[in-house]
């Protein structure tokens, strides 16, 4: 199939982009890496009349430290998660997740902002952003604001972004040496969207887990924090009993749907297996 005809505008500043989008009304879309949008256009699943290209907006680029936060520009490509030293040092969970996102050609173009703005519940980065308790910087006609990750992902492909709002950057609290991370997913083929995936960020004092954040993806309409499982663990050592209790608690945390090839019960089972393995890594990392 071929996309329906559309007009194209290349913005060079955030303000230009917001204006151009506003002129397009409901029928405008921002285009970043295009790795999700272009297939949707080609399949005529979406047929906007206007594309506003944000790839040439300098402000959306770059990774830098801002006090206790790492500011990651919306246009940061998936491949940069693997190569950028600041990310390796201060947001290693993003780096750990990046190899699981699609294939190299897609990682060369796909952007963090695009992935988070799209909020595909099967995507890795939205779950990581949730586990990191990051904040998402948004620009709109009414000005700028920062939205906490847990308030950002609202429903299936639905976020706190109002129509026309632009995701500018993702702000991540700096990783510190007392933290441990783990990330893995179960995908039928390397690079596929996972049957289930999980990112964990834990704060430890010796082998006591003082704080833990567990975020799952591919388990429902939105990336999901496993808060009951977290509370089974926080304040404890990762003994087999604690891990088993956390796995059991997932039954309350997650309510996956029946897929035509993956029954809900199987997905929950896989989430438990994955959680057990990741907690094993966290516990074994001393």
């Amino acid at each position: 199939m071929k996309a329906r005809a559309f007009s194209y505008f290349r913005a060079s500043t955030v303000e230009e982009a917001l204006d151009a989008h506003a002129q397009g009304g409901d029928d405008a879309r921002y285009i970043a890496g295009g790795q999700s949008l272009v297939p949707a256009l080609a399949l005529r699943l979406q047929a906007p009349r206007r594309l506003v290209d944000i790839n040439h907006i300098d402000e959306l680029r770059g990774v830098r430290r801002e006090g206790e936060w790492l500011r990651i520009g919306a246009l940061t490509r998936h491949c940069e998660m693997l190569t950028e030293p600041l990310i390796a040092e201060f947001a290693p969970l993003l780096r750990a997740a990046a190899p699981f996102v699609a294939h190299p050609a897609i990682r060369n173009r796909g952007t963090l902002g695009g992935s988070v703005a799209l909020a595909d519940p099967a995507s890795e980065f939205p779950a990581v952003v949730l586990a990191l308790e990051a904040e998402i910087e948004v620009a709109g006609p009414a000005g700028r604001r920062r939205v906490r990750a847990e308030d950002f992902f609202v429903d299936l492909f639905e976020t706190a972004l109002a129509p026309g709002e632009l995701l500018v950057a993702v702000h991540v609290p700096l990783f510190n040496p007392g933290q441990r991370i783990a990330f893995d997913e179960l995908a039928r083929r390397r690079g596929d969207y996972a049957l289930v995936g999980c990112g964990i960020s834990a704060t430890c004092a010796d082998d006591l887990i003082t704080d833990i954040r567990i975020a799952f993806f591919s388990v429902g309409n939105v990336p999901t924090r496993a808060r009951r499982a977290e509370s089974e663990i926080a304040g404890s050592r990762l003994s087999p009993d604690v891990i088993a209790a956390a796995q059991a608690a997932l039954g309350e945390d997650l309510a996956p749907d029946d897929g035509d090839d993956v029954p809900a019960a199987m997905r929950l089972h896989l989430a438990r297996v994955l959680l057990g393995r990741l907690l094993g890594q966290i516990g074994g990392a001393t």
Partner: protein
Amino acid sequence: MTAPLTPLDRPNSYIGRSVPRPNAKRLLAGRGRYVTDIRLPRMLHAAFLRSPHAHARIISIDADAARALAGVHLIATGADLARICTPWTGTLDHFKGMTSEPQLPLPLDRVVWAGQAVVAVVADSRALAEDALELISVDYEELPAVVDLDEARQPGTPRANPASQSNICFRTQLDSGGVDEVFVAAAHVIEQQFSFGRHTPVTLEPRAIVADYEPDSGMLTVHHATQTPYQFQDLYSRHYNIPEARVRVIAPDIGGSFGMKLHVYHEDMAVVGLSMMLGRPVKYVADRIESFVSDIHARDHRVQARMAIDADGKILAMDVHDATAIGAFSTYPRTSVVEGNQVIRLIGAPYDFTSYRAALEVVFQNKVQTSQYRAVGHPIACAVTERMVDIAASRAGFDPLAMRDRNVIADDAYPLVSPTGYKFEALSHQACLRRLREIMDYDALRGEQAELRRRGVHRGIGIATFVEITNPSPAFYGVGGARISSQDGATISLTPTGEVRCAISVTEQGQGTEAIIGQIVADQLGLAQEHVKVITGDTEVTPHGGATWACRGAGIGGETALQAARRLKANILAIAALVLQEQAAALDIVDGQVVSAASRQPRLDVAEIARIAYFRSDTLPPGTQAQLTVSHHFAPQGYPFAFTNGIQGCSLEVDVDTGFVKLLKHYVVEDCGRIINPMLVDEQLRGGVVQGLGAALFEECRYGETGQLLNGSLADYLVPMAMEMPDIVIDHVETPTADTILGAKGCGEAGTAAASACVLNAVNDALTPFGASINTIPITPARILKALNRY
């Protein structure tokens, strides 16, 4: 140090040598010319509106708004095309009693699967044609859809085609007699049920066609991504009533076919009609989404099987029932019953037993048609047989490899006729088994498996023996009334500079047909291969022939080229003898030079003979007419098919907590007779194995209750990818057929034939400690976890 000289060290001995494909670099450099790349002057583009329903009556079609769109040239419905195209029916006479409804390019009043093309739009561009599709509205009245195979077989269920008596397309039986008695007396009887999902071929290049009808000359030229240009020349001629000589079908570079590109597709037939209606070239390229709902699918079988063995583990008898669902029509012109027919004839084929009974039931349903796809029927027959053999082995207390050793037909027992009527000239199961044991290091692998199992790591080892059907004679299609040739033709010429061009009816889709034909011609004529140009894929250029399918390119096309080259060589030497005043028998050709046969002393350039014959015929003795072009045909005679055989093994690991399977290594020992190009044979086997592994673990067309394909995209229909594929170790046994001079049989389907059976056995082997069993393909994590009761 130098190795001893072999026949391959003789100049121009290309048969048996790994010569690179001459077209490989060009294709790699992006200089391929596929149908998609063709842009003819005044060319228009077609797109099709497709049915959202699996079964519905068409009440009305409103296309006024679409017709009014600027740049739209034609909107055609079933009725429009039916005025110029005669219907076709996918039955053949040798399948007694089979039925199928007549088909037209587009339906007149009823759609029978979701995704069926209903209305055609021709516009200045494809995008514009798709804009127009959005403006067409079709009013449907939904009819009950027959979706599931088992449901289709129930009496009293709705019919896929309401005018027919039942959903049965075809039934047949085989019975060697005395089967019940053998089962009653047997020491062990094993009974199992199997289920095989639908797959689809997923060629890299989708279906593509440019039809160019010229009203003034009445000439139709079709650029068509097909394996079989001559078959389509005949079909376009007959169904559009154009004299055959005015239909030209050109198959340019083709990106894979696997049997998918030799069937009649409704859109392709429609595009020819659209070009005739407009008097302009019309292009249609299926996109991936369309491929999933309109390319043929394959497999979809349920098999019930019983096997009787004696106390010593000797197989005594098999009794099987295969039910398969093929969509709403039988595919034209090769039908959709060949796969089932081959399933019941190939089950048990490697083994030495005589009591066999089989029944086949082929049913209609409201899905896209199934038909021949790489290794037609073989993977089903092989998986059923080999799983039964494994279960029998464990019942009788034998190791799987030892069990096969006891039961395969002995290498010195040939020729013989199988209980299903297949005539085997010479197979090499025992030799292949011995080689497999060595290359797998089988005993060490078993030792490692036992050791790892103690540590909770669950490895499985699978073995699968197979027989493959190749080099088909007219017994395949011709006897059933299909105008599908089992012979091939070649026209081979010496050019004025002493080079050779060979136009041959076998075709190239990426497997290297042109390479091996070049090798054979160069080898036989005594020329360097770079001086041989091979031309394929144009009905106006090459003689009529069967082309490429069912593993016949090397065996039949290769023999055609060999015989043609020998005749041309004789003609060249006849002129050389006149020029040199020598006996032709005393001369030979080596490296482009006529030499004396005895001393190998060069006497004359072949180019000099060409120069004399073409430009100075006055210097030849009076009455001499040099014949430096030879046309030659070859049809297989003797055995109706050249059967090949082989054995595969695999090692894998099952994660019993997630149900994920990791393929560790795959092994193939194969006997395709004379090997012309070892590299191409090995890569055919590897490609075939990968397709079989895809079938085993990943590929399945999943349908919802209303007959909608649920996973019709490459994001959801999982094809095998490099990361998940194991190394594939290959070895050969060579038993040439005595039916031809060349001795080559086919090898293109061998990899696919047994790979899924191997994986099925290996997964079950890994699950042995859990008492779990799986007889369903593909073997998904969901199915493994279910078998293990993990959720």
